[in-house]
């Protein structure tokens, strides 16, 4: 490896020796492509003409009105329905550059699986998605979307049958298949170079948002806020603001049914230093080091580890991480729909819920920039179930 892949005391590449050459090949291809204008031009072209960048920055007309200026970075409007598309296009190009003919990926709710499937279709790469068997049952629509785009969806029946187990199975596949296969990992976790590479491919979110807010407000926001599962949309938003000392950086984790119990996904707040899925980071685990099951209403935040750079940003005090419970996220989901006409992803609504709380608490009319990382179509059926399956009253 050329780089050490560390973020302070976090990161590294903890994989079986046999996978190290595959990571070295990936690091070399990534660094090489970063210096290659032709790669940049092709990627930018795809982001513009295929994915629909730049995405708008929308000022909420009603939410927080009179208390705060809440801006939404509209990654929900990106092709595919979430920020995931940014980086699958880049990794798809890299896979082709390395001469790989096959993609594999893990997915939880299916957003990254759908994104990988579209990249597979676009670049003509055979695609296999590992998905926990329970998630396959819960997310039939996304499973079919992946299949429509030609991907094979493999239900994973080991362990807790969710995202963590899908990552395990993808890593096992890659251990045997790296010669012709690229593992298109979906977040800023995993072994080096994934946390660095996925950050670089997602930082377009913050780069655009920073320019857009300066354009409309003439100043930087008071806070940037994003939800954190593995942490890719958050790192994407945060990276270009890290150097802006006056901008508070806030990551929002799934507090699930409450941080006092075990049914949450708040790794940064409740985790302990450990090693999972190739990197040293904070991990939800028991005393012996067995990984614990997590819980969140949003499958995308339901992960027992977190990107090592988030652990580092917390460590050095540059970012702080808070929790939002299921019920508050669901309230924000409904408020966004009713007040702004936007159905956002449950994941992103965790970030919005915290912004709404800040708007209530603060008296200084702050500018709050929230990453609306995905759209909520995938969550509509679950939301209907959660509000009791009843018809909602129209706004008077």
């Amino acid at each position: 490896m050329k780089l050490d892949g560390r973020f302070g005391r976090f990161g590294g590449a903890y994989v079986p020796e046999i996978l190290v050459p595959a990571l070295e090949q990936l690091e070399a291809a990534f660094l090489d492509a970063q210096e290659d204008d032709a790669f940049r031009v092709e990627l930018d072209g795809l982001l513009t003409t295929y994915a629909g960048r730049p995405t708008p920055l929308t000022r909420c007309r009603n939410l927080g009105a009179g208390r705060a200026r809440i801006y939404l970075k509209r990654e929900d409007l990106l092709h595919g329905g979430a920020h995931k598309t940014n980086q699958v296009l880049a990794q798809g190009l890299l896979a082709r550059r390395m001469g790989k003919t096959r993609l594999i990926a893990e997915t939880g709710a299916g957003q990254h699986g759908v994104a990988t499937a579209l990249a597979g279709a676009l670049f003509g790469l055979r695609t296999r998605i590992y998905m926990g068997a329970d998630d396959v049952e819960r997310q039939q629509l996304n499973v079919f979307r992946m299949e429509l785009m030609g991907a094979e969806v493999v239900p994973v029946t080991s362990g807790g049958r969710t995202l963590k187990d899908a990552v395990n199975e993808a890593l096992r596949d890659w251990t045997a298949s790296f010669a012709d296969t690229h593992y298109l990992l979906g977040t800023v976790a995993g072994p080096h170079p994934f946390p660095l590479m996925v950050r670089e491919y997602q930082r377009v979110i913050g780069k655009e948002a920073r320019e857009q807010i300066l354009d409309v407000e003439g100043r930087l926001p008071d806070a940037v806020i994003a939800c954190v599962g593995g942490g890719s949309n958050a790192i994407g938003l945060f990276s270009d603001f890290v150097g802006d000392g006056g901008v508070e950086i806030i990551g929002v984790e799934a507090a699930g049914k409450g941080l006092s119990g075990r049914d949450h996904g708040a790794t940064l707040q409740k985790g302990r230093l450990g090693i999972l899925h190739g990197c040293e980071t904070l991990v939800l685990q028991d005393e012996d080091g067995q990984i614990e099951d997590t819980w969140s209403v949003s499958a995308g935040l339901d992960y027992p580890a977190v990107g090592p750079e988030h652990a580092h940003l917390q460590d050095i005090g540059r970012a702080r991480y808070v929790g939002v419970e299921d019920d508050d996220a669901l309230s924000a989901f409904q408020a966004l729909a009713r007040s702004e006409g936007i159905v956002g992803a449950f994941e992103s609504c965790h970030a919005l819920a915290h912004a709404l709380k800040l708007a209530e608490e603060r008296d200084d009319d702050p500018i709050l920039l929230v990453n609306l990382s995905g759209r909520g179509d995938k969550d509509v059926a679950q939301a209907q179930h959660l509000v009791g399956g009843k018809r909602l009253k129209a706004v008077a």
Partner: protein
Amino acid sequence: MTRYAAMFDRCREAGEGAFGAFLMLGDPDLDRSALALEALVAGGADMLELGIPFSDPVADGPVIQAAAERALRAGVRVADCFDLIAGLRARHPDIPIGILTYANIAVARGLDQFTGDLAIAGVDSLLVADVPSLEAPRFSAAARTAGLDLVMIAAPNTPASALARIAELSSGYTYCVARAGVTGADQQLALDHGSLFEALDRAGAPPPVLGFGIATPAHVHEALASGAAGVISGSAIVSRLAKGASPAELEAFVYEMKNATRGTVAHPIRMTGQALA
């Protein structure tokens, strides 16, 4: 002299390869695991490679994943594994015992505490499946401080630079894999290791022991004939236990596998890289 060095010497003098037997500690529960471990020794295994169960074993195929799941479901804790080993060691003072586990199990206890506890239980070596040579220095240091050998994995695609690190950081033996992929028994033994053994020898790495896919006496014979100092069989033994094999049946299988090591061309054992203890 370490137990590994003594064992390899004995095998070489007898003109045979070493047979290593793997089981997951606590599979399917503590009592039955203790009986199964005795069966491995009774069957004539030269060395034991024992797993401490981890919830997320990414280097393992379905058979060994299931073994870890059974042990964890039975409530087996890491401290229980130490107790199982200590009992085994008390009854069998000479057999080399290696531990195979994952990085999080080691760091959760504190690396020095973990290696120290292993040494007290009577363990000779530690192999951490998801720690490649680049990340190995602190694991090697902790193992050496505790008087353990750190065993590392080498594969056909492992470059010379990594083999050099393996030679520097590891001791006891080198766990060689002859194919890509996770643990598991195959119909055909893959022997794609080409010049790996010679390269390890040139680098001054500890003796090569071949694992992954050693499921039949014929595999044992082939692997040793290809130049390995020994073999380790895991999934084949674990799957027998999972199907309800009695201790006597396990013993018979180990005996048959060990028997296949006899009359093989012994590897010219080097004495490099042994623990400093």
